[in-house]
């Protein structure tokens, strides 16, 4: 039966080269493997990221010598007290939170139907096209998109031309324009997690609900919504935190309105008061931490 014996193709002989020795060392030393894997990212995370954040925190407790303009490294709570009690800061903080909330609500309302269509209705081909369409705006510069909206919203812009025959008017520059522009900018960040969340809901669950007598609305309320809530919250973390820290959009389309970011910007630049800027910058950080703490229990952080 020699004819049936499989032909053997010899494998090349193993060479005892340096790469092989290194691999053998790593294969038998899990700690060395871990160190090699994590050294660079840990360096980045600790030194570049956390240290910078801590420096910011510390700076907030220093002050500026009004005569020389130099930062004085003496501990003081003046900046914190000023930020907490000053009516300017309170107003701007509330306004910023309001804008961020409005942007988040608008984005979620827009993203839910789009994401549902992408995940559950569209054909696989349409699905890919839509994902690309959602992602494409992210390739364009933030500034270009903000200025595009400035042009759209101007008194002789496209929006005015579109709605004036129906008696409407462009909102012009101000907070509504800021909200519109920010909603546009962060929409992809809200659509994508909700889309991913809906993708993970098996179609058979929707069919099971219909099978058991659940019409469209009960199915959405009892089955779809609870299952994608973590994904929705994951999306809101993006839109909310990105809106809280923004100052460029409001500069471009916000008219005279100021947000927290603008206060930071003027204090770092024109006012040359880095400690006060740091203290203001702490406000959105505290708000975001509070928000994360609230949503932690919903499991949304597993969806980021």
């Amino acid at each position, binding site marked *: 039966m020699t004819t049936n014996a499989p032909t053997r193709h010899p494998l090349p002989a193993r060479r005892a080269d340096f790469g092989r020795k290194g691999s053998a060392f790593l294969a038998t030393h899990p700690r060395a493997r871990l160190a090699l894997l994590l050294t660079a990212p840990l360096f980045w995370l600790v030194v570049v990221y956390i240290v910078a954040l801590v420096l910011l925190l510390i700076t907030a407790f220093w002050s500026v010598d009004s005569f020389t303009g130099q930062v004085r490294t003496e501990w003081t709570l003046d900046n914190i007290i000023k930020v907490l009690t000053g009516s300017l800061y309170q107003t701007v903080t509330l306004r910023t939170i309001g804008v961020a909330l409005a942007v988040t609500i608008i984005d979620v309302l827009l993203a839910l139907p789009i994401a549902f269509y992408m995940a559950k209705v569209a054909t696989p081909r349409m699905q890919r096209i839509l994902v690309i369409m959602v992602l494409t705006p992210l390739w364009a510069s933030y500034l270009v998109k903000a200025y595009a909206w400035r042009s759209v919203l101007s008194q002789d812009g496209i929006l005015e031309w579109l709605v004036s025959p129906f008696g409407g008017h462009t909102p012009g520059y101000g907070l509504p324009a800021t909200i519109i522009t920010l909603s546009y900018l962060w929409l992809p960040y809200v659509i994508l997690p909700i889309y991913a969340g809906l993708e993970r809901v*098996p179609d*058979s*669950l929707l*069919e*099971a*609900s*219909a*099978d*058991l*007598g*659940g*019409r469209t609305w*009960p199915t959405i309320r*009892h*089955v779809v919504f*609870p*299952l994608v809530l973590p994904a929705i919250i994951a999306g809101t973390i993006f839109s909310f935190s990105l809106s809280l820290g923004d100052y460029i959009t409001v500069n471009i389309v916000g008219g005279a309105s100021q947000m927290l970011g603008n206060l930071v910007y003027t204090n770092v630049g024109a006012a040359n008061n880095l400690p006060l800027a740091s203290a203001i910058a702490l406000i959105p950080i505290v708000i975001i931490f509070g928000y994360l703490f609230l949503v932690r229990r919903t499991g949304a952080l597993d969806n980021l």
Partner: protein
Amino acid sequence: MTDQQPAIRLTGLTKEFGAVTAVDHVDLEIAAGEFFSMLGPSGSGKTTVLRLIAGFEQPTSGTIELFGEDVTKRAPFDRDVNTVFQDYALFPHMSVLENVAYGLRVRGIGRKERNERARRALASVRLEQMGDRKPSQLSGGQRQRVALARATVVQPKVLLLDEPLGALDLKLREQMQVELKEIQRDLGITFIFVTHDQEEALTLSDRIAVFNNGRIEQLGTPAELYERPASRFVADFVGTSNLFDDSVSQQLLGRAGLHSVRPEKMTVGSGETGDDVHNAPGTVVETIYLGSGIRIVVDLDAGTRVSVLEQNDRHRVHDDERGDRVVVTWHDADVIALATPVSVTDAAAAAST
């Protein structure tokens, strides 16, 4: 004679997905209280028929009647049929009790009553202790029973089961088969059971429809299908068959046509002779010990390979080994004449004219 209405009547049911015809003019009546199985290989259209009855798909043409009522255009939530899904489709965010109570909840039944009824349904599948758990904390067999309780708590007229035992291991599957049969007898409702496992279909069903290429190849009781398969496909798919084509039939049986003999109807070396006994010499290729039986594969001199299944009893004295010359014996009464198959090209030609 309203109670003589069939539970399900399908008339000319057709479903096309683009260029593919998944279900091809199926006519079928399923009696009330029947345990009915749709058996076929994957892609044969059996699951599509089930989904059409449930309302998850709309037929391209044809009608579906439920106890004489045309439900073809109705949404799934307006049909008195319920489904046990292949993956069970339990709601992962709800407890077991909430899952079972879901159908009552969306019908607007108060919390107290629906929980009471859901508990009773859970008790009927012996899971009354598991109500507070999440589906993820249950085993496969338990999830299967929850899915069953959830589908039956709303008292459907017909229960559809889409390969419900497919994900279970063999022991559990056999146990669940017995339970399914008991539950069906207790509830007295019609079960329509989709499976690709011919043994399961034979075990459970009152009647079976064998599907192939979107059509019903044969419809009958398990015994009818097994003893009198109408076509080569059914003979091959339901149980194992030794198929004799035209030329082999001429040599071995002395008549033309396509024939089949079941392996357990054949013996090796029994030495039997008589008018209605066929003897065919051959060479043993393989002897496979199965525990309860022994399978002997023999290359007959007539030019075909047959599989013989012998009981592992005390009367079995001979041990045939590979290469041994043996005589395979069977009775003419056990020979099944199969209809000459219509080849695919013939069918296509017939369809185009």
